[in-house]
């Protein structure tokens, strides 16, 4: 029994095969092609050949893809949709898409705001106006094939959304795609509605990549595998769910990379440093998942409710240019020779002193012709390494939550330029297969359940409320396919509602477990 993990990035398509003990059997990189599926098929063939495993014994296949992000950012292949917002007489002061860039507003062919929705305590805000929705759907019929529905406080109660979704299918036909905001979740009507609109507009993109992936697998004779897609929070969803909620695949790349690094080093709490040719990304892994940024993500100019991993990027990499400044200081980067390193760095016969040359000179790496780096001034080399150390240690310190030493995982091709002993760190790990961390992160992912509710602690004591919320989240994870014994609570958050009488808190719990 094996897992196949694929990650389609901008430059490379990575593929890995992992056995039932989660050991990496084979890992390969293949250039991403214009037709994404050619690249996927080639990567699958290559990893199968390298691993020698029997196609029939692959039982799970996971795909991480940036195609939804790209479609939104490039405004390509987005479908026209209709939008129904349930919430009048509230919300009308903020029309849909009011702050969207003009070049993407066109995805909404037509919208309406109808009466209905709920108050924060679940009371009806207004009686649901089904007649207005029916009239809108009659008008919309034949013009679009996908509809987004949002509703005030649908995270508390989703019955109005479900009722309008049913009506939509009844009038516009059973094959119309309906996206409802409560499935996308999280408080904040506008961000949730924005994500729902984008989700609806992605339905063709989603069809293409889910069917394309399934077909690639079938063509390669992998016919026993359950198919999963990576989500932005580092967990998986089924192909069926991905077809309905493709927006949830947004930004799964950095998440998978951090989780893959964590897996390879077997560390659940550490700082992950991914060093490329030009930049270095620092991320933090907590309990096996990336720490999230506190800022809501903007995708292609549209604000959504998705949380992205908290990442600091600095201009330091294997190709960073080393200079002595007029005042005597030695600097490294932020500019880099980039992919031209193999012709411009000293060790490859070039004329530019790069961070890689310094590493070779100091005996930290063997690359190119070490003799060509031997002539670097000792003082310059020492100064450059000190500068690199300062940059890295400052970032490590910024990410840490306490003064205690933390473990650090180094990944990425440029990681040879970093010193192995860094202050503030306990151990520095440089795991095998570090180049394919993304695909590995995808292959080892868990499935999750997310629970969010406003709870009045005066009615349900906090302890009890949190226990109930944890149980609900765990139940949702099991419903998504997790083995019950493996389900763990990975995030608990409760924030009081400010300026509110009573003791109402917004409670959010996330649980995740291994796939059966």
């Amino acid at each position, binding site marked *: 029994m094996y897992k196949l993990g694929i990650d389609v990035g901008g430059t490379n398509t990575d593929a890995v095969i992992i056995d039932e003990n989660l050991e990496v059997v084979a890992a390969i990189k293949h250039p991403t092609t214009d037709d994404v599926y050619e690249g996927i098929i080639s990567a699958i063939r290559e990893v199968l050949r390298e691993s020698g495993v029997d196609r029939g014994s692959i039982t799970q296949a996971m795909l991480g893809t940036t195609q939804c992000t790209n479609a939104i950012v490039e405004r390509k292949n987005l479908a026209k949709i209709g939008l129904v917002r349930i919430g009048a*007489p509230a919300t009308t*002061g903020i029309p849909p898409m009011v702050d969207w860039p003009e070049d993407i507003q066109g995805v909404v062919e037509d919208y309406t705001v109808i009466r209905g929705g709920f108050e*924060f305590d679940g009371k009806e*805000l207004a009686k649901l106006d089904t007649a207005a929705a029916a009239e809108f759907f009659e008008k919309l019929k034949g013009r679009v094939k996908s509809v987004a529905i949002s509703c005030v406080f649908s995270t508390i109660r989703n019955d109005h959304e479900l009722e309008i979704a049913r009506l939509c299918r009844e009038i516009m036909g059973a094959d119309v795609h309906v996206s409802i905001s409560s499935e996308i979740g999280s*408080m904040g*009507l506008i961000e949730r509605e924005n994500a729902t609109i984008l989700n609806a507009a992605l339905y063709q993109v989603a069809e293409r990549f889910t069917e394309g992936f399934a077909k690639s697998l079938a063509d390669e004779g992998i016919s026993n595998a359950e198919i999963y897609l990576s989500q932005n929070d580092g967990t998986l969803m089924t192909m069926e769910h991905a077809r309905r909620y493709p927006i949830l695949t947004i930004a799964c790349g950095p998440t998978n990379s951090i989780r893959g690094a964590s897996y390879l080093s077997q560390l659940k709490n550490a700082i992950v440093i991914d060093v490329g040719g030009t930049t270095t990304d620092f991320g933090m892994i907590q309990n096996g998942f990336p720490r999230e940024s506190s800022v809501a993500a903007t995708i292609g100019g549209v604000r959504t409710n998705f949380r992205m991993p908290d990442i600091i990027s600095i201009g330091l990499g294997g190709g960073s240019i080393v200079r002595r400044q007029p005042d005597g200081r030695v600097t490294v980067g932020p500019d880099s020779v980039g992919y031209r390193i193999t012709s411009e760095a000293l060790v490859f016969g070039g004329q530019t002193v790069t961070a890689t040359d310094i590493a070779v000179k100091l005996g930290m790496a063997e690359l190119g012709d070490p003799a060509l780096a031997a002539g670097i001034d000792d003082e310059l080399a020492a100064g450059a390494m000190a500068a690199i150390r300062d940059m890295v240690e400052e970032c490590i310190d910024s990410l840490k939550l306490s003064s205690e030493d933390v473990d650090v995982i180094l990944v990425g091709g440029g990681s040879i330029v970093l010193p192995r002993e860094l202050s503030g760190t306990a151990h520095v790990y440089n795991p095998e297969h570090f180049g394919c961390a993304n695909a590995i992160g995808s292959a080892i992912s868990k499935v999750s359940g997310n629970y969010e509710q406003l709870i009045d602690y005066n009615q349900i004591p906090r302890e009890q409320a949190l226990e109930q919320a944890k149980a609900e989240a765990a139940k949702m994870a099991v419903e998504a396919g997790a083995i019950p014994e493996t389900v763990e609570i990975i995030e608990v958050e409760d924030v009081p509602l400010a300026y509110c009488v009573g003791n109402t808190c917004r409670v959010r719990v996330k649980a995740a477990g291994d796939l059966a």
Partner: protein
Amino acid sequence: MRKIGLREVEDIALGASLLGAGGGGDPYYGKLMAIGAIKECGPVELISPEEVPDDAIIMPIAMMGAPTVLCEKGTGGDEYRVIYEMVSQYMGKSVYAVMPMEAGGVNSMLPIAAAARLGLPMVDCDGMGRAFPELQMVTFTIGGVSATPMALTDEKGNSAIFNTITNKWTEELARAVTMSCGGSVTVSLYIMEGRTMKAFGVKNIVTRSEQLGRAIRGVKNQEGLTPEEAFLKASEGYGIFKGKIVDVLRETNGKFNIGRIIMEGIGDYRGERAEVTFQNENLTASVNGELRATVPDLICLVDTETFIPVTTEALKYGKRVMVVGLKCYEMWRTEAGLELVSPRYFGVDTDYIPLEERVKGGAENV
């Protein structure tokens, strides 16, 4: 008189999040309401206090309730007309202009939406010069203006005018009605004549907000200055600390969001520790146990890279922030002002010492 359009709204919103001093709610939803109203009804006329006749009726506009609820329900847009008619009828005279009561946070934006939808001018003036948690904490209280008559309406059309015997009663009754109405309502309070506004208001605060917003946006492009220097210069701020958040302790006492933020120094402040306490808005900032700033001066936390203000609700472990002090409006520093907003009023056992004196006490005096 000048026009406030979409561009100006962006800058005012950013400046208002700084003047929120950690509280006041994220102006984002307020900004969407202002944008929605301007797109539908056109730009707003911003008039200076001097342009307002002494006997004109000025109607401050604000939201009351939980920002979290506002982020689901927004507003309907018809609330301003309901309030305008109620107030004009009650005062026996048509309202001349609207104004913000609170320049910090979400309440900086609603008067812009109201002015656009009503076709009335907005006065470049408020009653705080920042955000404060309680209703009586406005400069107009110093001037003896009553909070009531106070007009309140929800988006469903339920409305009321309150006449109360004290501000405490106003607060209590209005909060109860707010919760029954679904947790967020539109209000007008401290309705006053032009002459009172001119005597006690914090003048040109909308313009200052706009300038602050524009400065934050432009910190990276200031010739000869680092972004940090550019930010402190433009905001006339005092750099108090730079660090990462290592702990956020929150509790709610049924009314306010209170707590403490603990930070460990980074960069020049490495090895030092700072603490900021808050009650919706930030109350005190101390470094290594020594107070560097207290309310009513503004204590703001901004992102160390972008200088974008961080509200108390968005604070998270590990976030890297700079603590900046801004001088409050002079009237708050008078005896009558401190009676309303002194550190002791907020339960902090210290005399008010102006920010610029306190920062001298420490090593870093910017």
